[in-house]
């Protein structure tokens, strides 16, 4: 006994050429929807994580760092950078009216040499005052950092419990941070006290960080939070005037560059997805109308043998659903296989912060993409089969011959 409910599957299996063409088409749809969405989402997420990580209104860096934009590269691409200014600037900044809090950080670049395990950016922060790195570190490392203890960014190839050698100092890895999709993922974090020790060790290797010969206390950047009600622009100018050999930069202006480039890329990708989608949908529609025409005789015969209008519609939809689910799943899998492993490459290629959404969000996106493919397939087949339902089987039978 052959049940009519098996007919869609039989049709697909015994007409492999036709089925493969349809599966490829729907796979293309699934690939473009899922792959494109993941890239756009990752870029958005990267930007918002960058904004979060730079939870400061104003950043003060040495003038040389600002002019060489080495600070921005460090943030975005994880290139190493070391630039210093006098720690006086922290006090000077705190004196400016409208500054709610200010925290200093010290940067040091390790070397690719015997003295260091890896070439990496080391960032020292003051656990007492820091509001940039400290909350982030608390998320992943419950206890306070002790002397010669470091926390590593997610891209640093060192596990908790291991030891990193930085200028011959053995630093104990106490924690790993969650990904941000920015250059901060390639850095190592320690307290300012540890950092001072590292600076000394570096000096022993001939790496100087002194601004003037008598200057013992140096810092690399100051993060400033502006008190509510004060104009950030004005406070920024005031800091600029009050500090020495330093540039005060509004965080927003630094991020606007990035978000501008990002929205450009996101728009391009979205437009591309849209174009691919419309194209693939049209091809699918044309393919279905052609196939439905070619199979008119077949459908009329099913009606002749007593298949009701509704049953025939369900058979056609089921066949398309099987096709689009298979194709959609294949396309999504292919997109995942391309986008997931190459996310680092995409990040460096686009030179933009890129942070992949979490697994549940990815799963949801995949399900959404599958649904979209299914809907497209169903819509195309419903359209193609529409007329079959409206006329008498006798009329279809005549047209089919």
């Amino acid at each position, binding site marked *: *006994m*052959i*049940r*009519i*409910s098996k*007919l869609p599957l*039989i*049709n697909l299996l*015994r*007409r492999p050429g036709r089925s493969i063409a349809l599966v490829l088409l729907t796979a293309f749809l699934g690939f473009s929807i899922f792959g494109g969405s993941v890239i756009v989402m990752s870029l958005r997420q990267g930007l918002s994580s960058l904004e979060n990580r730079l939870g400061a209104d104003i950043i003060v860096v040495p003038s040389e760092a600002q002019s060489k934009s080495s600070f921005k590269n460090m943030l975005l691409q994880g290139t190493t950078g070391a630039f210093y200014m006098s720690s006086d600037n922290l006090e000077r900044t705190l004196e400016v009216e409208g500054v709610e809090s200010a925290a200093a950080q010290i940067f040091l670049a390790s070397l690719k040499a015997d003295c260091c395990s890896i070439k990496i950016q080391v960032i020292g922060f003051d656990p007492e005052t820091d509001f940039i790195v400290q909350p982030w570190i608390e998320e992943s490392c419950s206890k306070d950092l002790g002397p010669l203890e470091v926390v590593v960014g997610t891209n640093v190839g060192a596990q908790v419990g291991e030891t990193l050698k930085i200028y011959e100092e053995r630093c104990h890895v106490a924690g790993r941070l969650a990904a941000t999709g920015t250059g901060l993922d390639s850095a190592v974090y320690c307290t300012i006290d540890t950092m001072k020790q590292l600076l000394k060790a570096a000096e022993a290797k001939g790496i100087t960080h002194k601004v003037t010969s008598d200057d013992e206390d140096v810092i690399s950047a100051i993060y400033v939070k502006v008190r509510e009600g004060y104009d950030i622009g004005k406070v920024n100018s005031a800091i600029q005037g009050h500090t020495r050999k330093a540039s005060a930069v509004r965080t927003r202006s630094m991020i606007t560059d990035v978000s501008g480039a990002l929205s450009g890329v996101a728009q391009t990708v979205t437009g591309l997805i849209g174009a691919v989608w419309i194209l693939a949908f049209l091809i699918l529609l044309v393919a279905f109308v052609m196939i439905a025409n070619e199979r008119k*005789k*077949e459908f*009329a*015969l*099913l*009606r*002749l*043998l*007593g*298949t*009701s*209008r*509704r*049953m025939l519609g369900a058979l056609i939809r089921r066949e398309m659903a099987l096709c689009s689910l298979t194709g959609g799943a294949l396309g999504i899998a292919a997109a995942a296989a391309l986008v997931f492993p190459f996310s680092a490459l995409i990040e460096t290629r686009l030179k933009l912060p890129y942070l992949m959404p979490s697994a549940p969000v990815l799963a949801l996106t995949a399900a959404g993409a599958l649904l979209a493919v299914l809907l497209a397939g169903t819509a195309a087949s419903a359209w193609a089969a529409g007329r079959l339902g409206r006329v*008498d*089987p*006798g*009329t279809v*039978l*005549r047209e*089919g*011959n």
Partner: protein
Amino acid sequence: MKIEACAIEKWYFRGKGDTNRFFAVKQTDLTLEPGKVTVLTGRSGSGKTTLMHMLSGLLTPDGGKVLADGKDLYAQEDKALSGFRNAHFGMIPQGADVLPVLTVMENILLVQGIYANQSRNPGADRSVGVQDRAQKLLGEMGIADLADVPAGELSGGERRRVCVARALAGTPDVIFADEPTSDLDDENMQIVLQMLKKAADEGAAVLIVTHDQEALDYADVCLKMHAGVPGPAVQTEDREAPSCQEGGAGSDLQIV
């Protein structure tokens, strides 16, 4: 099952405007009696297929009614009508249609498979022994060895015989055969006609549309159609040599 057509008609538009109404079938009364073979002949384009489609529930008439054992076929919803046709009617379409992806035997069994999943299966009792009957019918028509061959690979005449087996295997109450013997050699033509006759002898109402004069030998009633009008039904047992009278607008009855 008795099929009665009361003043059914079907028209189409030819050319532009509604004045160009053209009747494929003009007001027609016709009765198919159980146990009898009715043979419908006529020139190509005279409306035979259109009439048969209307009688078998496939084409809604523009006027009149079709009754199956007193029940108005077209008063039913599509779902009920489809189920009814599946359970009671055996169809041999003019185009010798088979599903090319299915094997010959699958094509035949599909008729019973359409409602096999449904709790209310109108033809459940008929699905018993269908396969054996189908195999036997194929054997009688000399194509037993084709049972497992994909139907798409068959010749025209082979397809035609598969359609015959498909229509007869479920022992339907009414059989509608549109040119069941075209593409067939003389021997197979006789075999198919005998099968249809046998189905009538077992109680089915059989309508055969054909151009083959040989069919008249098996007819209990015969009609000849002309320009959308069937001539009067002639009971062939009343006559020595069976022949049919032609209908037609303004034409006098003529003996063929």
